[in-house]
């Protein structure tokens, strides 16, 4: 019975199929992206040439007549006619631009429309769009419907200025806009500068043909079947030795992936070379066309092949290929780990046993699974995804990138945990550094301990009073005292925020009634903390009271009778009967309460909102702000993961301590 061998063959076949398919799909995607980038680069080169042309033509004053050369590529007769009738001097520059644009359009059949916008006077200086003829022909003012065009130009202008003045390391805005329209044409736009100022914009609609790329079925099949066949042959020699079979199968899979990785790197390098060649050819074409249209001053084609920030694209093929190789290695390493895990799962018979169990207990699983799947998808997957995120520098701008590119290892954790700058030096001397993790941690611990202390003591005292025999109005007191627990805590938080308002809040009215001065509660850390404490104390004591009351009522009264017979004092009865009986109910309630308070988002977020200056943030609100105000998702995830670890350690420790003391007692 060749069962081990058969399982490993099946396992390898499945693992290799998935790994090879994923690898092929990634390669296909990368190829498509490169072809797309190539098409975009070509379009940008055309746009840059056009911008240079407009710049030269528009920059020419009336004193320097344009020197058009006759017989340029595809010159229309109407352009020649326009040249003859050089009209009013004021329109000279505009006319030159229009002529240049018309020629450029004539020599580029793929371009559907060119529009030149002059910001001064919101002018449409030139247009070859089909709609802009007759009474709508350029030059004219932009119309209301063309506001998008104007806004686009202003966006580019703002981007150019922002990038020029922007601080080192600040996020840069694209200076060239590239948008793909639904009908397949691309719309590109670039700013026109004069004397360092952005004075206009050139926009063109052009048909861009992306070269299609075929999915590599043959390499995929080879990558899938080669290791399976190889393993089949080798396994004949290995026989039924399980671990050896596993090792050989894993090796086959990894060698296969390595080979596919080499192949991918080669393919991508080929794509890069093709891109470089195509773009270079395109630049020389454009240069030739340019010179037939406008001879002086000579164009600068070295500045045409640029990215969206108008920075020359990296020319060094070595660095690009090395970057490709790194990406491929990372992706395939991840696939390798997954593949080997799958291989082991099938090969060691776990898959078979899982399948059997699923069939045997299908009724039970049918009932249990819907909820479990929901939990898996929306609780456990996000949890582990969050953990993975904590090892990346993911932020608002790179969420679309694969995780392999944003991976930074444990850097977030070391950044958070190794920053001991709890205080910082400012003009006023040493002050607390409120954004420091340890400051917030200490604040959160103080917050939790004081809250739980208040909640437990107040709850316990009230429970003891309400448990007195013959205490009048007990049920009424009980119902009224539970009300804070019943109030949704976001409403409570907002109510307290209002009551502690500096000018109109009721608390300051009361202080003034007794002759005091109104307090600006949220201007000092201490008072702000007191307001939070009051709010949380208000909403949390009823829980402790109800729990304690329940536990007190379950103490059999004959215990007290016996104690009284033995002559125990009231205090002795309390310490030796009441408190020990409360323990089993109070300990879990305190654990729960510590966890709730530690993560009491609503009170910290809605009451003080961290005021003043973030000094009253607790860990959970701090991580929320990092995520949703600074958009540093990876850093915030690491922050949250640390919160989880703290609580987890606390829970484990508490469990052990209380469990141990119970065992002793």
């Amino acid at each position, binding site marked *: 019975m060749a069962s081990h061998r058969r399982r490993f063959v099946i396992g390898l076949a499945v693992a290799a199929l998935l790994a090879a398919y994923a690898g092929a799909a990634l390669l296909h995607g990368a190829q498509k992206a490169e072809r797309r980038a190539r098409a975009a680069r070509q379009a940008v080169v055309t746009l840059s040439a056009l911008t240079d042309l407009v710049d030269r033509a528009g920059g020419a004053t009336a004193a320097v007549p344009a020197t058009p050369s006759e017989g340029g590529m595809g010159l229309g007769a109407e352009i020649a006619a326009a040249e003859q009738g050089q009209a009013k001097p004021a329109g000279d520059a505009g006319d030159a631009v229009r002529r240049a644009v018309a020629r450029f359009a004539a020599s580029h059949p793929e371009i559907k429309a060119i529009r030149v916008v002059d910001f001064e006077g919101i002018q449409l200086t030139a247009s070859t769009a089909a709609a802009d003829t007759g009474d709508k022909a350029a030059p004219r003012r932009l119309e209301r419907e063309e506001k998008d065009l104007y806004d686009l130009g202003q966006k580019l202008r703002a981007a150019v200025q922002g990038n020029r003045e922007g601080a080192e390391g600040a996020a840069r805005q694209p200076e060239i806009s590239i948008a793909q329209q639904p009908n397949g044409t691309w719309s590109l736009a670039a700013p026109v500068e004069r004397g360092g100022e952005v004075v206009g914009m050139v926009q063109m609609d052009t048909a861009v043909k992306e070269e299609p790329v075929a999915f590599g079925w043959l390499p995929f099949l080879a990558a899938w079947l080669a290791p399976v066949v190889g393993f089949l042959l080798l396994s004949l020699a290995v026989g039924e030795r399980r671990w050896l079979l596993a090792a050989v199968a894993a090796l086959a899979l990894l060698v296969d992936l390595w080979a596919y990785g080499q192949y991918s790197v080669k393919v991508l390098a080929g794509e890069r070379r093709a891109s470089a060649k195509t773009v270079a050819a395109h630049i020389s074409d454009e240069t030739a066309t340019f010179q037939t249209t406008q001879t002086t001053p000579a164009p600068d084609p070295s500045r045409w092949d640029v990215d969206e920030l108008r920075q020359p694209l990296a020319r060094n093929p070595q660095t690009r290929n090395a970057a490709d190789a790194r990406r491929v290695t990372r992706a395939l390493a991840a696939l390798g780990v997954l593949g080997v895990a799958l291989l082991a799962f099938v090969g060691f018979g776990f898959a078979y046993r899982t399948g059997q169990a699923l069939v045997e*207990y299908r009724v039970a*699983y049918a*009932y*249990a699974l819907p*909820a*479990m799947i929901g*939990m898996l998808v*929306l*609780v*456990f*997957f*996000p*949890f582990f*995804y*969050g953990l993975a*995120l904590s090892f990346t520098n993911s932020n608002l701008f790179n969420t679309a990138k694969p995780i392999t590119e944003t991976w930074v290892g444990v850097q977030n954790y070391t950044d958070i945990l190794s920053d001991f700058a709890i205080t910082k030096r400012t003009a006023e001397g040493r002050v607390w550094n409120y954004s420091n993790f340890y400051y917030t941690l200490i604040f959160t611990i103080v917050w939790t301990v004081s809250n739980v202390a208040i909640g437990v003591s107040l709850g316990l005292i*009230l429970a003891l*009073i309400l448990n*007195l*025999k*013959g*205490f009048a109005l007990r049920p009424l007191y009980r119902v*009224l005292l*539970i*009300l*804070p627990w019943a*109030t*949704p*805590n*976001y*409403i409570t938080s*907002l*109510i307290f925020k*209002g009551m502690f308002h500096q000018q109109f809040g*009721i608390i300051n*009215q*009361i202080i*003034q*009634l007794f002759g005091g001065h109104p307090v600006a509660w949220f201007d000092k850390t201490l008072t702000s903390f007191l307001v939070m404490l009051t709010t949380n104390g208000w909403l949390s004591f009823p829980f402790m009271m*109800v*729990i304690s009351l*329940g536990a007190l009522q379950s103490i059999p009264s004959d215990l007290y009778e016996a104690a009284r017979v033995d002559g125990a004092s009231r205090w002795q009865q309390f310490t030796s009967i009441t408190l020990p009986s409360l323990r089993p109910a109070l300990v*879990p*309630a305190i654990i*729960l309460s510590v*966890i709730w308070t530690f*993560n009491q*988002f*609503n009170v910290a977020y*809605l009451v003080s909102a961290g005021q003043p200056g973030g000094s009253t943030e607790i860990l*959970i609100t701090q991580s929320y702000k990092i*995520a*949703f105000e600074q958009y540093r*998702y990876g850093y*915030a*995830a690491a922050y*949250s993961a640390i*919160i*989880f670890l703290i*609580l987890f350690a606390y829970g484990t420790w508490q469990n052990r301590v209380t469990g141990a003391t119970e065992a002793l007692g």
Partner: protein
Amino acid sequence: MSSNRSRRGDEPVHWPLHLFVIFILILTIYPILWVLAIAFSGSQSLAIADLPAHATALDRLRAIAPWPKHFSAENFRSVFADQPFARWLLNSVVVAAMTTLLGVFLACTSAYAFSRFRFPARRAGLMAFLVSQMFPGTLMLIPLYIIIVKWLGLGSTFTGLVLIYTVTAIPFCVWMMKGYFDTIPKELEESALIDGASQATIFFRIVLPLAKPAVAVTALFSFMTAWNEFIQAATLMDRVDKYTVPVGLRFFVGGFTQQWGYFAAGSIVAAIPVMALFLFLQKYLVSGLTAGAVKG
């Protein structure tokens, strides 16, 4: 009367304790009365009464008494007529109702399996429900935001919120339902099985009707989870017409707007139903919260 006298004999005097309890009671009730006073004051002001320039002690006392100068239902009328509060209320009702339906269905079926069947990974499954309660909200918030908004495209939709609320409520509901199912004798089902009833018939016709009280509590817990939730809704709903009540109420008094009258009226409308339900059901919730912990 005789019992009264005997009590007076060996019990200490209660009135200082009454004073203490009444003092706490005033602190407890005052914020609630304050909201009521603002809501019925007919104005948007935080203050119950305006103070004159040179306020006397009497004026100040008047300003803190939770009794509006003029009773007016204007805030209630206006919050519905002039503000999108009715819309938010409807949103909250829809989300909470869908959460309740889905949550109860999933919790009942799952709890039934954990209570009645013995199968591989049963313990692991039950533990998974418990452990999930420890995951911090913000660690989940970012991935959930990415999954719901960026991957599934469910930003600003009720579906996204309902899915999140349901899985939030499920663990507690499963543990509570399982505890209840455990108390229903198995003999009933066995005899039905002998009579030839199918597993589904037994579940829907016999077990669920017997577990009605627990189903009711589960339903209310799910409902309240969805009704009172703030952070997820604030993160996922970025269109005013899709706000739920908690996000909407914050909208009245957060940031630069200070419409306390609308806030107070809206709070009362939103809180009264859940407060009534809570008071009615709190003893079940307490036993559900503590049962697992005490046993463990």
